[in-house]
């Protein structure tokens, strides 16, 4: 590479990175700025918007509900997906393709379309079973399926499931022991990945809750925004920071060790594509 070209490349890189950095950091900084504004023009900075968070019982309730939803969804996802994936790997390899297809399907169906289809189902459940916000978990498990599948699949590919399970079985372990005491502990970082992604997704979810008329955190923030912009933005910042921290933890726990070549699915949709937009 010639010296002139190297210089040109460096100038290009610096300009692009600085502009990119500014574009992505300024809106987040502006939220901080907005949430610490005083009431009047020229009023000193205040944390009032932050301290009033605790004076909104609806908001606190929504935070509690969203955390509950995140927990239920993570647990439900693991209980549903992990045994199935292990079982399919060991005993039903023929089904692997179909399971993968089903898991990645929610990426190609827009969330709003799923809501349209689910609204009669939810109306039925609300009338015939119980009407609680936690019903949303049923839909959220579907929503997190692609991300959880990717994370768990990477974890399962990194260990030798067959040998582990045969060893355990030959020592007299039942299937429950194989799954929960032999395989699961060997893929703890993949389990953590799947759970953190689920939590981040559920905490940011707006579409389902809003259209099925449940008040989760994002819906409450949105409605609060119409009345008290400062506080709602403060809560937004807080929830954003929480999600950031979760996802940073995730990126430091690292991509799980990969032994198998990157996936060759027809639907090579990157995991990050479908956030709560």
């Amino acid at each position, binding site marked *: 590479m010639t010296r002139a070209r190297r210089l040109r490349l460096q100038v290009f890189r610096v300009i692009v990175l600085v502009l990119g950095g500014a*574009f992505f950091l*300024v809106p987040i900084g*502006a939220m901080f700025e*907005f949430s610490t504004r005083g009431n009047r023009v020229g009023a000193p900075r205040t944390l009032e918007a932050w301290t009033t968070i605790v004076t909104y019982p609806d908001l606190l309730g929504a935070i509690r509900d969203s955390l509950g939803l995140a927990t239920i969804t993570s647990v439900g996802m693991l209980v549903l997906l992990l045994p*199935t994936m292990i079982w399919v790997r060991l005993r039903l390899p023929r089904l692997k393709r179909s*399971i993968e297809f089903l898991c990645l399907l929610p990426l190609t169906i827009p969330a709003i379309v799923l809501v349209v289809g*689910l609204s009669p189902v939810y109306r039925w459940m609300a009338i015939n079973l119980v009407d609680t916000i936690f019903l949303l978990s049923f839909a959220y*498990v579907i929503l997190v399926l692609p991300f959880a599948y990717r994370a768990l699949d990477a974890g399962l590919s990194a260990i030798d499931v067959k040998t582990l399970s045969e060893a355990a079985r030959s020592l007299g372990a039942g299937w429950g022991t194989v799954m929960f005491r032999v395989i699961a502990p060997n893929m703890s970082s993949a389990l953590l990945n799947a759970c953190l992604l689920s939590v981040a997704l559920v905490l940011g979810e707006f579409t389902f809750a809003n259209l099925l008329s449940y008040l989760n955190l*994002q819906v409450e923030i949105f409605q609060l925004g119409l009345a008290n*912009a400062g506080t709602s933005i403060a809560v937004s910042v807080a929830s954003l920071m929480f999600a950031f921290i979760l996802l940073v933890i995730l990126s430091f726990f690292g991509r799980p060790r990969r032994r198998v070549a990157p996936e060759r699915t027809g639907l090579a949709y990157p995991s990050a594509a479908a956030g709560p937009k």
Partner: protein
Amino acid sequence: MIAAGNPDVKTARRPREGGRRFPLHWIGALPFLIYVALFLLLPTAIVVVGAFAGKAGPSLSNITDLNQGFLLNAFFSSLLISTASAVVGAVAGALLAYAVATGNPRGVLRRVVSSACGVLAQFGGVTLAFAFIATIGSVGFIRLWLQERGIDIFANGVWLTELPGLVLVYTYFQIPLMVLVFLPALDGIRPQWREATESLGGGTWHYWRYVAGPLLAPAFLGATLLLFANAFSAYATAAALISQGNPIVPIAISNFLTSETGRNNPGLAQALALGMVVIVAIVMALYALLQRRTSRWLR
């Protein structure tokens, strides 16, 4: 190890479940399949069937009802902002990806940028809308700062809550997604190709026009399609940001779905939803096609 050569061991019976393989096997996958059938396949079926159902039996009335000015407009707006934000996001994201890819592949910069992109590509919805309202909304930080210097970005009306604003806000998650998708393609470019171009007497222009450009084109187009589908499916950001005047398809759907607007019409919502599915399916099929082409050279 005494048993090693003993013929009895070889012919020992398999465990009992081996005898009746079929049922036990499939039962293992049943809970998952039932769940997916109930909460993913059933809703999809409801949308498809509902779109073709009339007051009495099957009918095309919902589909033909789509042929109304404001609904066609909604589709047009949706296609427009998805295309615009996909193209802007793809170009800007490709530049950013190139700036990162030309650095140290194990450096801090690359690690930070790819982590940040992973997070930001997920970012959307109410929070993102609020971030932009706090930045360039009518009392936003940048807006006020510019106003003090005599520049009024809203001289022709508050475009932030209109379609142009939506394009701007969408690029905030489109660019990181582009970086994530395009970085692997850029990594597939080998320095030897550049050296080969130069040893044949070609300059920078020749390299990009005849070597790197054609190689990256399928990956770039594919990523653009992905970004298009991403923007086309987005609802929450638009719902939190946009004024009621000119809705996009997801907003139109939500208006027909919720009864509070008094225009509750599930059939029409289902027809619109079907329209979205068809468009996204076409785009994703093209994407898969391009993906296959990309993998021929850039691996």
